[in-house]
């Protein structure tokens, strides 16, 4: 399993991490420009995982993309022209992954029919293209939230109707419609549908998925066999001025080290348990999610138990780093008091320093995931995060 960054707007201290189709001016950008100063691979997805994709704008003519200049409808032809201009290391085929929660069977059928059309067109154009000789094509895995539809789609990818020689990997789409709300999806919400998508597929091709997956859901997806993730989570945490603090280092012995349970975890906005009798708890019973994250009211700051919010006044004179023991540039050089000051003063340096920390933390998290898989300790990692972050005694197992 490996973690690759998706780059946009290349800069040493990059801010947003997904390249997506924006304007037709992309035509003129050469491969050299795209890869300047990069030491990483570049891949392209259709939509921006950090922004909620408006529903209902895809139809037979093409897929809607929201560019700086407004909405544009992209056909497979146009999409492949853009891919040739960008010449990424890999990209996903154009797809209509529209159906959100509660989509009708008909809607799902329309989306799979269109997407199969696009896939075939992309494969044809990809194979014929000189400029894309160095690029790899990934096929989407979709079918809304229907296990049956997803399983059926994946089977059709393995059948003779699709030219498998052109496919180098898979992107799991349609589990959500992008944006910050993906954070609320818990392992239990995605487990069965992802299994349904992956089960028919060849094991040797990489699988990736984008979105603001929270750390526990990431672990679940990794457990199910997903290889590539993106950085929407650290990015959106930065946008709300959060600094990630969740632990992820598995020690030889559970009780020692800077990352043992209870240390360096201050969640000023933490409100973990709603009492069983409260109206809110009852209302949330309908929604299939564990009650381990609560959205604050609109007046308060959005946060999660995985982070501390730098807007919080408790930071005002703290001389310690964002996270004790963290080796990132921000933690080695600056204090919580300074980052808090920058945040309150609305200064541009606040998100720069926070993104450096959050991305560093996220990358280290993935090192830990890889190590845990190698040593068959993925469940221990999951327990570490669950017990530290949620102080819960429930037995949550990877299903």
């Amino acid at each position, binding site marked *: 399993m490996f973690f690759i960054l998706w780059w946009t707007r290349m800069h040493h201290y990059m801010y947003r991490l997904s390249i997506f189709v924006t304007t037709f*001016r992309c035509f003129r950008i050469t491969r050299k*420009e795209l890869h300047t100063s990069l030491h990483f691979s570049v891949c392209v997805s259709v939509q921006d995982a950090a922004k909620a994709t408006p529903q209902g704008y895809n139809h037979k003519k093409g897929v809607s993309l929201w560019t*700086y200049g407004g909405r544009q409808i992209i056909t497979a032809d146009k999409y492949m022209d853009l891919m040739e201009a960008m010449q990424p290391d890999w990209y996903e085929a154009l797809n209509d992954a529209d159906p959100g929660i509660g989509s009708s069977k008909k809607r799902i059928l329309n989306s799979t029919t269109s997407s199969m059309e696009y896939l075939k067109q992309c494969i044809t154009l990809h194979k014929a293209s000189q400029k894309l000789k160095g690029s790899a094509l990934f096929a989407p895995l979709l079918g809304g939230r229907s296990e049956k539809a997803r399983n059926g789609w994946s089977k059709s990818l393995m059948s003779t109707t699709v030219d498998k020689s052109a496919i180098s990997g898979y992107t799991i789409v349609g589990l959500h419609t992008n944006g910050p709300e993906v954070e609320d999806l818990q392992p239990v919400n995605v487990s069965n549908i992802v299994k349904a998508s992956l089960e028919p597929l060849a094991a040797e091709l990489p699988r990736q998925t984008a979105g603001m997956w929270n750390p526990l859901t990431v672990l679940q997806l990794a457990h199910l066999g997903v290889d590539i993730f993106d950085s929407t989570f650290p990015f959106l945490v930065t946008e709300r001025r959060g600094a990630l603090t969740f632990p992820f280092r598995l020690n030889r012995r559970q009780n020692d080290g800077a990352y043992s349970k209870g240390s360096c975890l201050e969640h000023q906005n933490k409100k973990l348990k709603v009492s069983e009798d409260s109206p809110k708890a009852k209302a949330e019973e309908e929604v299939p999610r564990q009650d381990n994250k609560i959205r604050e009211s609109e007046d308060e700051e959005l946060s999660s138990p995985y982070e501390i919010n730098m807007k919080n006044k408790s930071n005002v004179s703290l001389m310690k780093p964002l996270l004790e023991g963290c080796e990132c540039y921000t933690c080695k*050089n600056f204090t919580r008091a*300074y980052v808090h000051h*920058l945040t309150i003063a609305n*200064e541009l*340096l606040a*998100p720069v320093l926070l993104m450096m920390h959050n991305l560093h933390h996220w990358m280290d998290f993935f090192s830990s995931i890889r190590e845990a898989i190698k040593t068959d300790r993925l469940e221990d990692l999951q327990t570490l995060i669950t017990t530290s972050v949620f102080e819960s005694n429930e037995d949550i197992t990877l299903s």
Partner: protein
Amino acid sequence: MATATAASLPGASVAAAAAVSSSSSSPALSFRILAECSKSKARTSLMKLPHYAVELPMFMPVGTQGTLKGLLPEQVKGAKAQVILGNTYHLGTRPGKDLFQDFGGLHKFMQWDRALLTDSGGFQMVSLLDLAEITEEGVKFRSPYDGSECMLTPEESIEIQNAIGADIMMQLDDVVDVREKDYERFKTAAYRTTRWLDRCIKANKNPDRQNLFPIIQGGLFPDLRKISLEQQIARDAPGYAIGGLSGGEAKEKFWPTVHLCTDHLPKNKPRYCMGVGFAVDLVVCCALGVDMFDCVFPTRTARFGCALVDNGQINLKARDFANDFRPIDEKCGCSTCRNYSRAYLHTIVTKETVACHLLSLHNVAYQMRLMQSIRDSIKKDCFAEFVEDFMAAYYKDQEYPQWVVDALAAVKITLKK
């Protein structure tokens, strides 16, 4: 310093006088002229401050709230900035002087290990706050946070600046809008500024490591300027600032005032003209003998998508740049110009915050490179030629503004047509 034997030699006293008048030394600042222009009043010098040895003339980018438009300290150093400016009004409001006292100053707080300069807070108050009223005691204003009545006195300003810990602090001055017509107001301000200077000097707890610069006032009235100059110079400060300008006055009135001040200010001390940042103004003021400058212009214009170049600025939002794959400036060595094209910047400008960082970095680097060119040309005694070339590149068809021609002529530099 002349000894008895040296003084008896012919010409020695002149040489001794010359040696003395080209350098000065205070507890927290030492200054030495390295070279002078043989035509104009331009000179290049070395000013040693507690945190950094600064080459003059130099330009200070403004890092208002203890940060420079999203740039990391090492990026600002990479752009060759030597001194940056912090605003006492903003920093005194938040995080406030108590935090600085606990933290040991702004250098540590923002991780800037070169020199810092703080202004007094007076100008911000007068320009930002609706109900600021100047009394003999200080500047009376209403707190923007809770509406209560507050007072910024010379003592309070110095107390905040002491806590911030900058290498150079500015006195709290009675600054009048330069477009004010009332002569008496300027007269009051000139005398009051000196009274406030004395209070500031008394209040400075760290004269051994923090310099306090007086500010020359007097509006655009030569007689008032002379009074202010005489009074302020008598306080024997480590350096002096020319204040009350760059407030929208006509350039024809601006340069003679600067010229008058630099004629009277001691040669062997640094002169700081506050609020000057446009390239042409910097070049002219150096010719007039100014050593230090500050301005929000380079970082502010970056926010609007403008990049500084040798003949002004280019607005990268313009469609012309959509297919322009050159860097902003082929001669520039900043990391923006080494890595990104105008076309790339055009696609992101005003849409992605990273554009602001990239342009701020370039603009700061541009200003630093301009000042370096000025210093180098003075060292080689070809500053006059540098000025001529610079103006010819800046003004197409040599349509020089009259004020530029006049100002340079006053110091024996002729712009050819």
